[in-house]
């Protein structure tokens, strides 16, 4: 009775082929260059989009199923965490400041990635990369929203979260991650893929997500751990996409190599500069440390990244130029950053503190070549001064690097006692940089980087006060006006952890939870 005619069995690859790229056709009623206007101007030559190897083969039916399953589990944990006041189980309320850094600095980038991948997905004429990019655009929406939903519960009980969206645009140190992503999304579609897909998602992701997620795990933050781990399975797809992009571009034409190498040099450095915030988070902000920034850099970049770049050397790609500078900076980066935030804590939306004696011992052990020599004396001095009632606040606005927008706080390669300054002239104006790498990036595209919205310049130009402010009025307090414009509430969101409302509330609530008071 079996009337069924035997159908051709399609292999997985062929099946995926008919489910994706076979859907595409070459248009005849409109010109390719009108439909895909953005694929040529960067100079990347693609001869055959069909040579694209799909890095993963996921059809939408399977996507919906897996992702819905993951979402269900994740939201069950988020709900339970909120229901149980899980935030009271973190090691120490100082930990919560790392979550503030994440929500204000990283989550808005997930949103930008959502839009950016939609843009490049639309821009590529190749159906293979388009599908992968659009799927990533959808995933990035997931990451943004799960982070907002998970962290929403912290916002209910702690300061420093409440206006994260506006802070990301306005607050001085958040212009560092913001301008990083703005730089990527305003670049051409191929550069975007090298910047975000490869350099950030592939090369540097382990230095961003792993520290936050394992930091959360070590410090009893189930909520953050849950969205972090849940996002990791998406990241695995994103990483394979990032790697495939590089290989695909390089295999298409030898002329692509120098362009791609320059992008890798640029974006490894740009990404690394953003990771300054992660470095100080790992070394200073996590009450229970996972590993030092230096160790993380050695494992995830020098070892794993080293292997990756050796593998890519068959295409002619070499290690990013900045690796040598970073090798020097790894003993200093986190210390210099946290010292700066300690100085400027009046203008931050999280709390700072002086490391405890135990923590300084840990830092001495992890940084035998630098901590005791250069940084412990500073902390001890500041601690003494604070004890005498002279808590030091820096009220002079710092000069910012025109490219990475970080205050000029980094030191000369080879001399940790001398601040590194570089400058260049462009159309009669002087521009300042924190490093040779940032200067070189500027000099390659000055017309782009002169546009940067530098927070310090903007404050001096009077663009960061509430409407109607009169800076010439007697007794005008610029810091107060800037904080108002930021909507950072003085005395609640900023300043030292010691004496903060967060500290008091956490102690009182924890006492309620653990004792019979």
């Amino acid at each position, binding site marked *: 009775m079996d009337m069924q005619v035997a159908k051709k069995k399609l292999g997985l690859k062929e099946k995926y082929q008919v489910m994706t790229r076979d859907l595409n056709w070459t248009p005849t009623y409109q010109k390719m260059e009108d439909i895909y206007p953005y694929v040529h101007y960067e100079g990347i030559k693609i001869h055959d989009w069909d040579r694209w190897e799909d890095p993963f083969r996921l059809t939408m039916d399977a996507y919906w199923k897996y992702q*819905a399953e993951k979402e269900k589990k994740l939201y069950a944990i988020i709900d339970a965490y909120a229901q149980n006041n899980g935030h009271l189980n973190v090691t120490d309320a100082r930990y919560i400041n790392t979550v503030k850094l994440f929500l204000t600095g990283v989550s808005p980038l997930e949103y930008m990635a959502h839009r950016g991948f939609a843009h490049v997905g639309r821009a590529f004429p190749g159906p293979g990369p388009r599908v992968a990019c659009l799927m990533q655009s959808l995933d990035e929406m997931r990451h943004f*929203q799960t982070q907002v939903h998970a962290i929403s519960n912290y916002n209910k009980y702690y300061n420093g979260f409440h206006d994260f969206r506006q802070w990301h*645009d306005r607050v001085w140190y958040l212009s560092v991650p913001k301008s990083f992503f703005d730089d990527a999304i305003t670049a051409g579609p191929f550069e975007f893929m090298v910047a975000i897909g490869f350099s950030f998602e592939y090369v540097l992701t382990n230095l961003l997500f792993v520290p936050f997620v394992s930091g959360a795990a070590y410090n009893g933050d189930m909520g953050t751990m849950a969205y972090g781990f849940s996002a990791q399975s998406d990241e695995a797809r994103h990483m394979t996409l990032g790697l495939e992009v590089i290989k695909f571009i390089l295999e298409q034409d030898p002329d692509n190599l120098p362009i791609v190498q320059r992008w890798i040099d640029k974006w490894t450095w740009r990404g690394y500069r953003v990771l300054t915030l992660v470095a100080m988070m790992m070394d200073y902000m996590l009450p229970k440390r996972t590993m030092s920034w230096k160790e993380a850099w050695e494992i995830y970049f020098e070892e794993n990244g080293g292997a990756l770049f050796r593998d890519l050397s068959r295409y002619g790609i070499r290690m990013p130029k900045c690796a040598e500078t970073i090798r020097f900076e790894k003993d200093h980066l986190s210390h210099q950053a946290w010292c700066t935030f300690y100085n400027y804590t009046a203008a931050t939306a999280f709390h700072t503190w002086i490391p405890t004696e135990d923590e300084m011992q840990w830092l001495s052990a992890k940084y035998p070549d630098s901590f005791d020599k250069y940084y412990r004396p500073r902390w001890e001095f500041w601690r003494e001064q604070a004890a005498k009632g002279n808590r030091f606040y820096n009220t002079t606005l710092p000069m910012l690097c025109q490219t990475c927008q970080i205050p000029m706080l980094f030191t000369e390669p080879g001399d940790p006692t001398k601040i590194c300054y570089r400058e260049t002239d462009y159309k009669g104006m002087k521009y300042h940089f924190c490093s040779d790498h940032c200067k070189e990036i500027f000099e390659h595209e000055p017309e782009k980087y002169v546009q940067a919205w530098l927070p310090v310049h903007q404050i001096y130009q009077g663009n960061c006060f509430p409407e109607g402010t009169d800076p010439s009025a007697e007794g005008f307090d610029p810091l107060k006006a800037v904080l108002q414009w930021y909507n950072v509430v003085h005395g609640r969101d900023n300043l030292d952890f010691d004496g903060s409302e967060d500290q008091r509330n956490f102690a009182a609530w924890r006492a309620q939870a653990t004792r019979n008071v």
Partner: protein
Amino acid sequence: MQIDLRTVTIKPLRQTFDHIARYLGADKPVSRYLEGSIGIQPKDIFHYRPTWEPEREIFDEGRTKIRMKDWDALKDPRQFYYGAYTSARARQQDTAEANFDFVESRGLVEALPDEVRQAAVALLVPLRHLAWGANMNNAAVCAYAYGGMAAQAAIYQSMDQLGIAQYLTRIGLLLGDVEALSAGKQAWMNDPVWQPLRRYVEDSFVVKDPFELHTVQNLVLDGLLYPLVYDTIVDQIFAARGGAAIAMLTQFMTQWSAETRKWVDATLKAIVTESAENRGIVQAWVDAWLPRAKEALLPVAAIAVSEQAPALLDEVMEGFAQRLAKIGLSA
């Protein structure tokens, strides 16, 4: 037995984020949809202009002719944030999978009258390319629309269309094997019957205004196509000719279009009720594209229903005109 898990009751300092409280005018608990959607797109302080469109900001209201005081007014009545979206689609996918299984395991394809099977293949298989075009168009809406509300729903729409292209591919394989797919592509590329529709789609690829694209693709083209092909031809005519099995295979599309319509209508209604200018602009888009969509769909419908096509299309047009009227537009 009930165990109280919450050992401490503490009073929250605030209910939601400030940008949401400012928008709603009050600090109050909000749904996950609103919390993950309001004000999420940056509006200012862009550091650089796009090298790919230097006359614009990264997100720029100037990309569309539409003017809105509040872009977050373009809310999605389905309240889809990512979690709600994937969970809804996963449920529909379960049903679709069960339907495919049912049709395959009962040998229902073999039981189809030959002319129905052939008509279904000829009508449905080329539409996988059309859905692929809709995937690309909605990616453009997501990338270039102003405001997080519209952009978010557009990526869902985009990936739904990819899903539909993939369901249609499975239907093609089931009803006619790989040859059906290549024949369908041939028809899409060369058969005169499909050319006005392909031209419509390719012309939409060069539409730059994201809200014009939304109108051209999601309102006008899909607004005629889904009622015509799925609700009328597949569900009624094929079913009446012994092809109910095909309706089982396209159930996802039927349900999806009924659901998606709510979003399309709500966004366009918010746009046209904003101002007479907006209404005029959207009406001009409808006036320019609707006759083309009708003209393009007529020969396609005729593949399956030959001389019945004009009458069916008129019927669909009637329903569509009512839909437009509810939005505040006219046919």
